[in-house]
């Protein structure tokens, strides 16, 4: 009649989940507290990665907008012979001969100060520099105007000025109507335009820009270029960079400083790969606390549910079935905690990105990754108690309660 070889105790996976959930329902509050640690830990991890990725994505988008094809040439800092530093007047024209160069434009520095009125003492410059600028500067840099218009071949000759975004703010100018004038050098200049921030040339934000002829006529500056902006064929930027110093200052190429403004942004993007270590550590600690919580719930459950374990053994559960059941409970707990944490982390990311005017970016692997982390914690915490439950002798508890 009894043929132990031919049959095996079986427990369907659906039933594993069913009895696991039923087991958790009995200790609901403690279970909720136990998963809090996992929730916090996963939320922290998701938020850290989400926020970092969002900020990185916004920088990449910015970089795309600016383009990586912009190079600048500036005079060096040879203090022994200052004249050596000066870029030749012909430098922009020379650079323009390099075939992949698409735009060349320049600014020229002056020592003039700009003030709201002539009553303000000249040393209160507010950190604003006055620069002479080519009329093609705006187009070469893809800069945008917030108000008014840019210098043209006519206004470049007159005492007219275009203010950088920061400079306008410092001077307290936010409109052009009625006509606004600023005291620049020794005369009034009419403000004809205000720039938006120029991400690729942040030095322009704190500048007051006047035409090159005006700089010469009214301020008496000689017109050695201070910054030459070069737009290249995007695929040839590196090649152009290699010859730029020699072309700009053939006599002293070592004294021409060539740089690529997008490099700073690219470096910032690269640094975003390194997530905030402190927060990551806190998330990890929360996960450990969560693991201890789950292990605690499981150990308590096993002590309280010895009768149930004995009954299941009498009904035909193998040790494995008991171990699977309690492991499943731990996994369900951690999956619930992890899901709540993922939700909280995503909400945090979206909220933070919204506040920063970024578009929230959640890498596609983040959610399964976070869930896997939560489940790993649950498995680690639940396995040992589950094995202990499986080793319990079936009968002890069966006679205990009524």
């Amino acid at each position, binding site marked *: 009649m*009894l043929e132990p070889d031919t049959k095996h105790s079986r427990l369907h996976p659906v039933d594993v989940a069913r009895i696991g959930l039923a087991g958790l329902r009995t200790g609901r509050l403690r279970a909720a507290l136990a998963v809090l640690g996992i929730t916090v830990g996963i939320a922290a991890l998701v938020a850290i990665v989400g926020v970092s990725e969002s900020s990185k994505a916004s920088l990449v988008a910015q970089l795309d907008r600016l383009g990586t094809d912009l190079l600048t040439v500036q005079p060096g800092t040879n203090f022994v012979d200052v004249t050596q530093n000066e870029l030749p007047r012909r430098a922009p024209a020379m650079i323009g001969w390099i075939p992949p160069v698409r735009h060349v434009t320049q600014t020229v520095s002056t020592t003039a100060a700009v003030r709201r009125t002539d009553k303000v003492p000249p040393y209160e410059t507010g950190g604003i520099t006055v620069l002479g600028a080519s009329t093609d500067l705006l187009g070469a840099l893809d800069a945008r105007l917030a108000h008014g218009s840019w210098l043209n071949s006519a206004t470049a000759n007159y005492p007219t000025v275009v203010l950088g975004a920061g400079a306008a703010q410092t001077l307290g100018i936010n409109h052009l109507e009625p006509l606004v004038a600023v005291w620049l050098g020794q005369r009034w200049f009419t403000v004809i335009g205000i720039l938006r921030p120029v991400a690729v040339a942040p030095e322009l934000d704190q500048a007051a820009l006047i035409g090159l002829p005006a700089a010469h006529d009214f301020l008496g500056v000689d017109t050695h270029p201070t910054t030459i902006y070069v737009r290249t064929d995007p695929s040839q930027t590196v090649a152009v960079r290699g010859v730029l110093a020699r072309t700009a200052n053939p006599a002293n190429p070592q004294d021409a400083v060539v740089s690529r403004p997008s490099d700073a942004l690219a470096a910032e993007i690269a640094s975003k790969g390194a997530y905030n270590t402190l927060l990551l550590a806190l998330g990890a600690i929360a996960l450990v606390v969560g693991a201890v919580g789950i292990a605690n719930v499981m150990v308590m459950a096993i002590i309280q549910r010895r009768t149930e374990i*004995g009954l299941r053994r009498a*009904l*035909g559960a193998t040790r494995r079935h008991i171990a699977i059941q309690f492991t499943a409970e731990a996994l369900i707990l951690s999956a619930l905690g992890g899901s709540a944490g993922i939700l909280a982390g995503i909400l945090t990311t979206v909220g933070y990105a919204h506040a920063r005017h970024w578009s929230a970016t959640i890498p596609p692997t983040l959610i399964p990754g976070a869930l896997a982390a939560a489940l790993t914690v649950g498995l680690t915490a639940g396995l040992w108690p589950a094995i202990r439950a499986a080793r319990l*002798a079936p009968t002890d508890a069966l*006679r205990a309660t009524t």
Partner: protein
Amino acid sequence: MTPAIELREVHKRYGTEAHVDALKQVSLTIETGELVSIVGPSGSGKTTLLHIMGALLRPTSGTLRIAGRPTSSLSDPELSALRAYELGFVFQNYVLTPGASALENVADGLLYCGVSRRERLRSAHEVLDRVGLVARTTHIPTQLSGGERQRVAIARALVGNPTLVLADEPTGNLDTQTGAAILALLTSLNADGVTMALITHDPDVAAAAPRTIEMRDGRVIADRGTDANTRRA
């Protein structure tokens, strides 16, 4: 034919220091298809004997054979399969799952038999009908009377169509009429070939069994009934 259950010199000692010898060198054989009642005063070791027969408890010494095979040679999966498919237990204290309905409790008797949930619930409903509880299927144990709980426990033991039923006072909480009905159910199953060992304090139940084993102080002091099995411990 191989006996259903065979105990040889089985000794069971609980505890180590202040120990209790609940079974003392018990040897007995239950043939396939027998209906055996086990009687004796409280504390005489009846429940211990039943748990040993179901391999829920390991003897301290001696051997237990189920269907001719010594349980010490059976692996945990093999023993579990025996309990799942061949054995039906009715515990003295019922051991029902608190929050689950009568139907769910009975269906759990098939949980480890690879039967679909729908099929489990269907079978459970059928057996609840046979023990006269079809009107109580949705009640949870705290909403059931003691006798009703006992019948749920019996139904759970029977739902898997076991070949060996080990029942600890299955009619202890039932009135005469219900007790008689349950006894009739059990004897009819026995008539269909199910081997049964019933612990009882009820003379009617003991009388209904062709064979009665009497325990006292951990020993079998009398084994009356079928001649072939009559022996003294």
